């Protein structure tokens, strides 16, 4: 068997030698992916309840979702909040990453760590904190409040993506631009930004996804007419088990997959 004995890398290790590695990797991948994929067949069931495998197939739960004003309003809210989070978090995170990267200030690393804490602190703590803070400020149940909270969650991601992009960028280009007569801002927009634009777009998509998929903060601070899709789904799961959830989940998995593939595609085009 030629594939079996052919070397897997530059070294002499063959694919055959790596057989068990491949098996373990495949099992891990399946364990990660099956729980997500299992909802897809469930969403096409004709049954009143969530069941697997479905006995009869139908699209009725998709119809249920698209015909429901409640679900539609929640979807619009989620898209709106996601989009606004993208618009706020992307420039904010880009500016922060750029400033901290370029300054070389002795506290730059510390400030960077502080700004990415929302990624490290358990989300439930952030949610509780935000809930009480917003209570005093009257921001609970508002789009503005949700966008602010999601921006705090998305900004660290943007910062990490943009910092990685700046690492592989020669900052002397900006210096040259300045010596050639460009102001700092002009140098950034004409020389730096065009070269990190793919990363900026990736960061934008990721911040949209961060908001769109977020449930814990949404449970605390969104409500009424401004409840997000994820919050409604969570409530629906608790109150009544209904395959509409599976249909919505499938759509969300689809959206997330498309966006993640988009970032991967952008990443590849960059090179």
């Amino acid at each position: 068997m030629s594939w079996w004995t052919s070397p897997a890398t530059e070294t002499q290790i063959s694919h055959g030698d790596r057989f068990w590695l491949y098996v373990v990797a495949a099992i891990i991948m399946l364990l990660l992916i099956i729980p997500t994929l299992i909802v897809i067949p469930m969403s096409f069931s004709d049954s009143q309840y969530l069941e697997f495998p479905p006995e009869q197939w139908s699209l009725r739960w998709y119809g249920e979702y698209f015909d429901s004003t409640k679900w539609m309003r929640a979807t619009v809210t989620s898209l709106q909040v996601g989009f606004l989070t993208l618009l706020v978090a992307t420039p904010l995170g880009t500016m922060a990453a750029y400033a901290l990267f370029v300054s070389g200030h002795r506290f730059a690393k510390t400030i960077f760590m502080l700004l990415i804490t929302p990624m490290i602190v358990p989300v439930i703590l952030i949610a509780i904190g935000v809930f009480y803070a917003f209570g005093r400020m009257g921001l609970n149940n508002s789009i503005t409040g949700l966008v602010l909270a999601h921006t705090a969650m998305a900004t660290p991601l943007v910062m990490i993506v943009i910092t990685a992009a700046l690492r592989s960028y020669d900052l002397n280009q900006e210096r040259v631009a300045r010596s050639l007569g460009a102001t700092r801002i002009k140098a950034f927009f004409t020389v730096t930004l065009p070269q990190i634009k793919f990363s900026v777009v990736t960061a934008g998509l990721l911040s949209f996804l961060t908001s769109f998929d977020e449930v814990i903060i949404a449970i605390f601070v969104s409500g009424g007419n401004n409840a997000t899709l994820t919050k409604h789904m969570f409530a629906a799961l608790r109150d009544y088990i209904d395959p509409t959830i599976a249909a919505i989940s499938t759509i969300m998995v689809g959206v997330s997959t498309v966006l993640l593939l988009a970032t991967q595609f952008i990443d590849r085009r960059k090179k």
Partner: protein
Amino acid sequence: MNNSTALPISIRGLTKKYGDLNALNSVDLEIKSSEFLTLLGPSGSGKTTLLMAIAGFNRPDAGSIKFGDAEMVLTPPHKRDVGMVFQSYALFPHMTVSENIGFPLKLRGLAAKEVMGRVDEALATVQLSGLGDRAIDQLSGGQRQRVALARAFVFRPRILLMDEPLSALDKKLREHMQIELKQIHRQLGVTTVYVTHDQREALTMSDRIAVINHGELAQVDTPEAIYNRPKDQFVADFIGESTMLSLTRGGDGRLSFGSEIISSSSPNPSVSKWSLVVRPERLHLLEGDVNTSEKQVVFRGHVKEYVFQGETAFALIALDDVTILSVRFGTGAGSRIQLLEPGALVSVGLMREDIILIPQEGQT
């Protein structure tokens, strides 16, 4: 282009500290209009810090930088009108060759037609005519270097700064570009400050060389003067090859090495310890029994090592148990290198005109 826009640079008391490190320690340097001056020093000597201060990318803690009569210390880089070439070239990869070179012209609001004309002119100067539409990643290292240079002078800056622009090129191309850069400098007549750690490059290209060490200027002089009359051990050591021979001072002020009298008097009576700097190529092989005379000093020793290197041959000659003299000769028939057999006793002569005396370290 002519040199009517070139400006002299006057640097006074320039000091820059990074924490406890004195990157620049009260540097005074006068650069003449249209001059090609090289800042030469080992890494960490402060040469790049000084160049960046002239460009405006770091703000000195004290001192003054004047272009002509105008004080520049507080002027941001984009208002200094200085062309700059970086070691990494820092070309803009998202722009074509022409767009790169046209960048400073567009910033100055020139009309598209004039931009095109000036870009073509600059491309011709660096011998890249017709490559304007190329993408940067389609260029070779040498071509990139030329584009970076063209971009730095196309807007007719008053001053051109270069930070080790040739160090990424291979030896042949580097030597070729050295000559070419020199020609372009002559053609443009722009005041040029060039940074390098390569002493040969500095000797090849410069009108004057400023040797810098530990943030201070060790010597500022023409290449000939720096090579032939180094002021101290650092300069003698850093520029060219050399052997330092420690001299003894007799009661009458005579400086001698062993029994050979090197100089009848000390160049500076207040300095007691002197070294003789011997450049390997300034020595010549002697045949037979020749002694030190009015004309030359003769050293005798055994050949320890002999290496044939093509255009020159290199040998180490042990004068005594601790002193080893490096010598370098041409390999032509007249140079008598056949005498250099390992172990052989040979005599080498140093003309009195070639004697270089420097005070020993720790003295002034």
